């Protein structure tokens, strides 16, 4: 969903900068913008800085500087620039919007939300901010859901950030039709809220921006779940669920096979094979060392004259494509001891094989 986000940011940047060309005395900024689009950030920055040396308050130049910093990965500095723009020109929605994009990229959704709400407060009909705010809420919702369900997606925020930067500039060139928005923002001195401009120009860029969003989404594996298609709202969650369920159904047989093979190795008292079902980063009980744990297991498997491990009522739940939780009843019968327990294995797919990451018996 952040692909769309990024394009909006880019849209704002591109739109605002296009306006610069209308200004007779802004050649330097225009040149800087050209360099920026060519990816020559250092040169672009040098030009912008030299311009800002003479006109330190200029909004367009500072905005461009913010975009360059963003592209250079200097997120903190970029945030600083956009923040100071919102302080000096609180009536401009674009700096708020881009600030939100940067915060969102860092996973600071609360700050992103506040920034977007500010953009909307100054321009109640600023559709981009509304759309982005919707995305932020969806992202915050998914964070809360993840906490509720203990799903681990700790690595997605970095992905989001990278996607942001790439999208911001690759889409920049194709935004020729977006200049309409600019009229609302070019007048830095006495800005016209978007609400006062005719409705049509405000709506069109959003539609234009929304269309290409659909393509990049399928490419992203994790970060863009169900809500990705932007426009239709009514019936989309269902197909998404079907799609998610399918791989699970096909994979669960593999997982179960692994569990049964594990039990078979255990029953056969084949220590080496038994241990091969445990992932290298297996979470040993009580955090004992792997070797100490293996020694205990070696002992436990070797001592009894016989061992029978029977598994029943097994069910598999997938956290994602490579993580699954298997729950089952385990009947353990050995020459010296019998027990029955409800067992849960956390499993990870590694090198085409499902391995045990964590093991615990219940109650």
């Amino acid at each position: 969903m952040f692909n769309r986000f990024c394009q909006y940011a880019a849209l704002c940047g591109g739109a605002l900068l296009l306006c610069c060309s209308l200004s007779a005395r802004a050649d330097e900024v225009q040149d800087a913008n050209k360099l920026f689009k060519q990816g020559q950030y250092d040169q672009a920055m040098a030009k912008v800085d030299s311009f800002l040396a003479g006109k330190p308050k200029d909004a367009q130049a500072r905005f461009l500087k913010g975009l360059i910093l963003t592209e250079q990965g200097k997120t903190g500095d970029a945030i600083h620039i956009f923040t100071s723009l919102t302080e000096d020109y609180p009536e401009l929605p674009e700096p708020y919007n881009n600030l939100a994009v940067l915060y969102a990229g860092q996973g600071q959704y609360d700050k992103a939300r506040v920034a977007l709400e500010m953009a909307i407060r100054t321009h109640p009909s600023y559709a981009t901010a509304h759309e982005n705010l919707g995305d932020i809420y969806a992202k915050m919702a998914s964070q809360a859901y993840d906490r509720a369900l203990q799903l681990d997606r700790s690595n997605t925020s970095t992905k989001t950030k990278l996607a942001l930067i790439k999208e911001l500039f690759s889409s920049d060139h194709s935004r020729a039709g977006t200049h309409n928005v600019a009229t609302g923002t070019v007048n830095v001195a006495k800005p016209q809220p978007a609400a006062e401009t005719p409705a049509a120009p405000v709506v069109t860029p959003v539609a234009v921006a929304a269309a290409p969003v659909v393509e990049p989404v399928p490419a992203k594996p994790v970060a863009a779940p169900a809500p990705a298609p932007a426009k239709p709202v009514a019936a989309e969650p269902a197909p998404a669920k079907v799609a998610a369920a399918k791989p699970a159904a096909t994979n669960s047989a593999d997982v179960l096979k692994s569990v049964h093979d594990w039990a078979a190795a255990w029953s056969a008292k084949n220590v080496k094979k038994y241990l091969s079902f445990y992932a290298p980063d297996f979470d040993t009980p009580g955090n004992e060392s792997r070797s100490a744990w293996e020694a205990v297991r070696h002992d436990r498997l070797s001592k009894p004259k016989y061992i029978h491990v029977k598994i029943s009522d097994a069910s598999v739940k997938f956290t994602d494509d490579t993580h699954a939780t298997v729950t089952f009843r385990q009947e353990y019968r050995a020459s010296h001891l019998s027990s029955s327990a409800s067992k849960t294995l956390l499993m990870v797919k590694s090198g085409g094989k499902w391995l045990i990451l964590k093991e615990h018996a219940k109650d």
Partner: protein
Amino acid sequence: MRRASFALLSAALFSQTVLAGDLNVMPDESRKMEALLAKSMLAVANSHLDLALNDVDSLLKINPNFKLAQLVKGDLLLARSKPLTSFGDAPDAPQSRVADFRDEARVRLQRYQEQQPISLEPRYLWKMNASQHYAIVVDTSKSTLYLYQNVNGEPRYVADYYITSGKKGAAKVSEGDQKTPIGVYFVKSSLPKRELADLYGDGAYPLSYPNEWDRRFGRNGHGIWLHGTPSNTYSRPPRASNGCVVLANDDLLDVGKIIQVGITPVIITDNMHWSDAQDKSDRAALLQSLEQWRKDWASRDTDAYLRHYAPDFASGKTRFASWAQQKKLVNAHKSWIKVNLSDISVFAYPDQPNLAVVDFEQDYDSNNLSNRMKKRQYWIKHGDRWQIIYEGAA
């Protein structure tokens, strides 16, 4: 908030009538949290999203591990971005997990919407003895543990808590059936956190399952505990344990303050009945029968004494016939007997309207033998007559 203010009211009532010490247990926190959560859930249904989000956030600040609250927060946020299609609308959530949350939400909402039974007494607490400062009653059908204080032998409502019980329901019969037993139990011991696996949370109180009645019916299994919650979550779904009664850790610590090992009764039912007139008359009749049993024993009228025992009486392997024979033999050598009963407690058996568990301190004195013991009897009402069906040391 209505409920929370009731709790405060009851707190005020108690502070005037405190008999037994250690009454600083006012579990407002978990109730308040539940009320906030319930209000938020109702707000989702009514689309009052702003206030509800504040409520959920303040509740999560206190307890970030309250997973159900996180889920409700997700709904509150998602509702601003698209119309919700269901409770717990996380796009890729495992359905069984969401179903668990839905169960917990339903139970907690019900607990919030039903008035707390401050003026009712559960049917089971017929008589508490002076050393039993509190009694615990669990209703698995409502996922609730009720706490009662002993005020002159009568129960007074103090608090109630959300609990998790057996995955497969109530009425445990055998080992591994993942059910919570129904019956009259006592807290056997106390296990501190440091001796427990994380699953059991901040403490555990093993119960006396299987009791004498369970054994009579061959029910087995063991390790039915009151215990806490693993560190990574605030609460568990209503039906999730292997038979144990599970409380939130804060609640367990609250309840733990009043638990007296070996003394506190824990009565578990799956269908709470409240005390009524019939109940009171049954209790009076039973107490009268108990007194008559004592008198008949002391009178050395062995036939009268034996008439208090039911034909299907059994104490371990001893059946009525051998019991009668042995009593006749013993009594024949007595020139005098004195029996005194004290610390009597009586608990009606859940799901078994004509059965009661009677405990007392028995002071027995005679011409050739004296002893003092804690005794337990199970009395059963055949027709309108109470008789002893089990007797043994407690």
